[in-house]
Structures are given as structure tokens and as C-alpha cells.
């Protein structure tokens, strides 16, 4: 099934804006000893303190609703921010409790990280999150089944496709992200410990914009989903927020894009027949045999 997907209102592609509001949690998750390193923590804290509000203003001006991934600990620390996201008509989704790296956790710890985070987010937002994104790293076998049992309808955790696909027979849909459409990959930077590890230069905004424009033209041609994966502390500076505003304006003005939240994309896709030969299904079969 490589025919172009069909989108609502005759649109030629879907555009989904997703924003992670991680604060300083990823930095603390690297090493609890980082607690006293206030400068490095402040890099991440810029997200909930400043960047998120600016991105909310951009989205409000455009009338675009986004999906916001908020770890439980950030929700507890910034309840007003979470409430203004919900009041703005946006969707909130679970992103763990402390933004722990899944590669270092066994299945039980992964499940606890997801459920604790979802509970904390629900207490603050008053909404049960239906979507989940792994903080970083990969889930263990059996995790999607637990997601389904806990009432999650979709995940946005894997980088492996340009359209949704089912996570085996769990009923949970994966809404993949792509590295080319992330801000972290192009623009994320920390001095110590270094990110990127090779300390490469921050990409120019011109280059980011041109790649995204090409991706949008390609999404229209191939009928795919363009999922932006942004971070409040990275994309929320004045100049980058303006780039986002200009880019999203161009997608709206094209008249050819369906702008949706992750939840709306999942609801739209839910009735599609599954691709029997999809790589995720192949992964389940092969990994059971090979490992």
C-alpha cells in the first residue's frame, strides 16, 4: 500500500505540530549530580519559563492547535502553563514523569515512568492524556500492550515512517516523527556535557527553513504527514518562533494542508486498513526469532 493517503477536506498532506516541554529534566536525568549546575539547567528551563508562552502566542495568532508533550514533573512545577495550553484548545500528551532515558530502564520502570507521568499530567490539566511519546531511547517488548491497557490511543515515539502505522495488534497507532523535521537535530546545543557530542555548529535558520519548505512541497506531492517535533526551549526564542510562524503560515496559505493535532490525526487514521507487510510487524516477527 504505497498509494497516497487521503486527507480531510481534500487536503494533499497533513501537518502536525508537536512541542516537547522538557525543562531541565533531560539534563537532570543524565546525572542527579547536575542539580547544582544552574547555568546548564537554565538552558532547559527557558522552555517552560519563556519559550512555551511565545510558541502559544504564535499558534494563537495562526489559529493552529498543537500537541504538547509534558513530563509529569514539569506539569507539577508549571501548572499555570499546562492550564493555558489546555485553555488554548491544544492537546496535552504524556512524556514520562522525569524524562528518563528508556534505554536504561527495564519494562517495569518504563511503565512506571509512563503511568506516573500521565497521572501527574492529568491531575494538573484535568484531561486524561490519550497520547504518549517516549522521553528518549526505545521501549522494551510488551510496552505497547501496556500503553493500550492504560487507555492510550496513540504514540509518537519512533522515527521510522512518514505516516501512521499500528503497533502490532495492540490498537495503539504510532504517529512517527522524523529527524529532518526536528529542531533538536538542527539547533539543539549544550556546552557541557556536549550536545551534539561532536560539538557541531548550530545549523542556520535559512537552511532549516529551506529544508522544511522542501519537505512541505514533498509532503504535498507524496501525500505524507509532516510532523514537526519542536522543543519549547529550542524553538521558543524570538527568531525561531518567527521562523515557525512564517513556515506554518505558508502551509496554511497553500490551502493544501490539513493542520491537525496528533489526536486528530490518530482519529482520522484509525479506520485505515493496516499494511500487513509494514516494517513494525516485520520487526515483531523477526525480533522474536532473532533475539
Amino acid at each position: 500500500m504505497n498509494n497516497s493517503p487521503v486527507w480531510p477536506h481534500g487536503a494533499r498532506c497533513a501537518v502536525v505540530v508537536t512541542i516537547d516541554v522538557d525543562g531541565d529534566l533531560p539534563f537532570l536525568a543524565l546525572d542527579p549530580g547536575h542539580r547544582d549546575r544552574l547555568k546548564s539547567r537554565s538552558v532547559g528551563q527557558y522552555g517552560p519559563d519563556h519559550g512555551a508562552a511565545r510558541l502559544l502566542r504564535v499558534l494563537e495568532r495562526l489559529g493552529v492547535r498543537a500537541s504538547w508533550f509534558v513530563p509529569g514533573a514539569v506539569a507539577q512545577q508549571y501548572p499555570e502553563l499546562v492550564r493555558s495550553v489546555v485553555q488554548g484548545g491544544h492537546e496535552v500528551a504524556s512524556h514520562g514523569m522525569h524524562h528518563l532515558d528508556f534505554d536504561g530502564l527495564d519494562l517495569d520502570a518504563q511503565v512506571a515512568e509512563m503511568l506516573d507521568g500521565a497521572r501527574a499530567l492529568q491531575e494538573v490539566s484535568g484531561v486524561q492524556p490519550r497520547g504518549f511519546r517516549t522521553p528518549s531511547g526505545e521501549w522494551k517488548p510488551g510496552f505497547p500492550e501496556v500503553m493500550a491497557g492504560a487507555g492510550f490511543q496513540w504514540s509518537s515515539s519512533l522515527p521510522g515512517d512518514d505516516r501512521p502505522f499500528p503497533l502490532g495488534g495492540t490498537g495503539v497507532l504510532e504517529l512517527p516523527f522524523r529527524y529532518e523535521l526536528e529542531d533538536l537535530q538542527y539547533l539543539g546545543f549544550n556546552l557541557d556535557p556536549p550536545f551534539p557530542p561532536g560539538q557541531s555548529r548550530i545549523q542556520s535558520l535559512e537552511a532549516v527553513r529551506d529544508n522544511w519548505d522542501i519537505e512541505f512541497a514533498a509532503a504535498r506531492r507524496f501525500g505524507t504527514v509532516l510532523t514537526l517535533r519542536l522543543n519549547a526551549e529550542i524553538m521558543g526564542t524570538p527568531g525561531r518562533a518567527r521562523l515557525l510562524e512564517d513556515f506554518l503560515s505558508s502551509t496554511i496559505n497553500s490551502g493544501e494542508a490539513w493542520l491537525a493535532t496528533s489526536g486528530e490525526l490518530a482519529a482520522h487514521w484509525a479506520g485505515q486498513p493496516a499494511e500487513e507487510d509494514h516494517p513494525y510487524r516485520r520487526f515483531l516477527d523477526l525480533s522474536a526469532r532473532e533475539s
Partner: protein
Amino acid sequence: MLTGALWRKPGYFTLGAYGPHRAMPRILDILAGHGLTATFFTPSWVVEQWPELCRRVLEQGHEMAHHGHRHEVFFGKAEEKQRAIIRRSRDIFRQLLGAPGVGFRAPSGDWHPRTARLLAEEGLLYSSSLRNGDLPFRHADNGLIELPAKSLFDDYTAFAYHRAPNFPSGLDRVAPYRPVFNGWFDEILAAADEGLMVSTIWHPKVIGTPGRALLLDEFLGRLLDSGRVHVTTSRAVAEDWNERLPR
């Protein structure tokens, strides 16, 4: 490479399998749109996993060539191990594709000082593994034809990216697409001025994502419009060289 870690990483696996599953049909459509044929260096494990796709590649006039069974690094492998991989790959090609394939490109990294001789002994016509040259040449001691390919034409160098495991190891940024394609175009036209051969090292999972596939289509159109480049399969170049300069 299909190591144990892959089977614990669904995201990493699906990113790779995007190549045969999603990108290849798109690339085949683009090539057909320009009336072009290409060479697909394909590990025989991939042929086993996606046999219908590989048969479609042949039916559309393209070439299927060898790239190990599971993308093994030949350097450091005993000769008999290498020979076993080559034989197994050719058996799988014969069985699933109806022909054994005559070309080979060394999987990631390096090959072994004896690999070229083994390929010649096993009946292969050419390799496209080394970097040293702007035209085909023969390996002196065994007669295998070499079609050199340069790393500057490897799409990994500009576009491949993944975290945990990290590629590139320093997580350098994805390059701006357009300047990369423009650089490839300029390099090819300069080679055309000197009457040379250029081979790309592209990977469907990298060059066949939507944005890059769009530029690939434009790029191929510009190449053909230049009227200065003959685009064909590696096999056709190797056979032509073999005929014109017999051993």
C-alpha cells in the same frame, strides 16, 4: 549491520526498513519517470525479506548486485568465511531472482586484501568498492573490473542521522538539502568535461524520504537536460569496459 542491538530497537529497525518498504517504490517511480535504470547493491538477507520488491526492480530493467548477506564487514574475516558469504548471496539471488548477479559493493567500512580475488574466482565481473579512480580499472592480479565510487557521493555523509545508536557519531546536523544536490551536480558536470565516470552511493532510506526524493527527481531531470551525461547501470559500464579493453 544486523547486530543483536537492532532487535531491541523498533525505532532503529523501522528507520532502516523504511528503505525497502516505503522509499524504494517511490524511487522506482522517479527513475521510471526519467526512463533511467540503476544498480541496487542489496544484501541477500534483504532479498529474502523483500523478494517481490527485488523482482520488481529487475522487471523494470534495473540491476540487482551483491552487498553481502547481512551487510558484513569483509575486512578481518577469514577467506573461507568471505567465500561462504559470496556463495550464499549468489545462491539466494539465483533462487529468488533467477540470476546470480555479477556485481559487488563491499558493505560498510573495508574489505579484505583477498576479497577482489575471491570475487573473481567466484565468477563476478565487477566490484564498486574502492575510491581510487575516475574511470573503471582492472585489478592487476585477478582481472576483476573495479568501478570506483567516491565518498562525496555517499548520501550518508550529508543526510543520515539517528540517535542511540548515534550516526554520525558526533551527531552533526543534517545538511541543507539543496546545496548538497547542487554539489553533486557540479561534480558530475566537471567529470563530464573530462570524459569520466561517476558512481553514486545512495541508500533508499536516506535519499528516498519525501524531501530528498523530491530533490532527487529534480536533480535527475537537470542531469538529463544537460545533455552531457549518460546514465546507466554499473553492469553496463563494466561490460562495456570488458569488451573494449579485454584482459
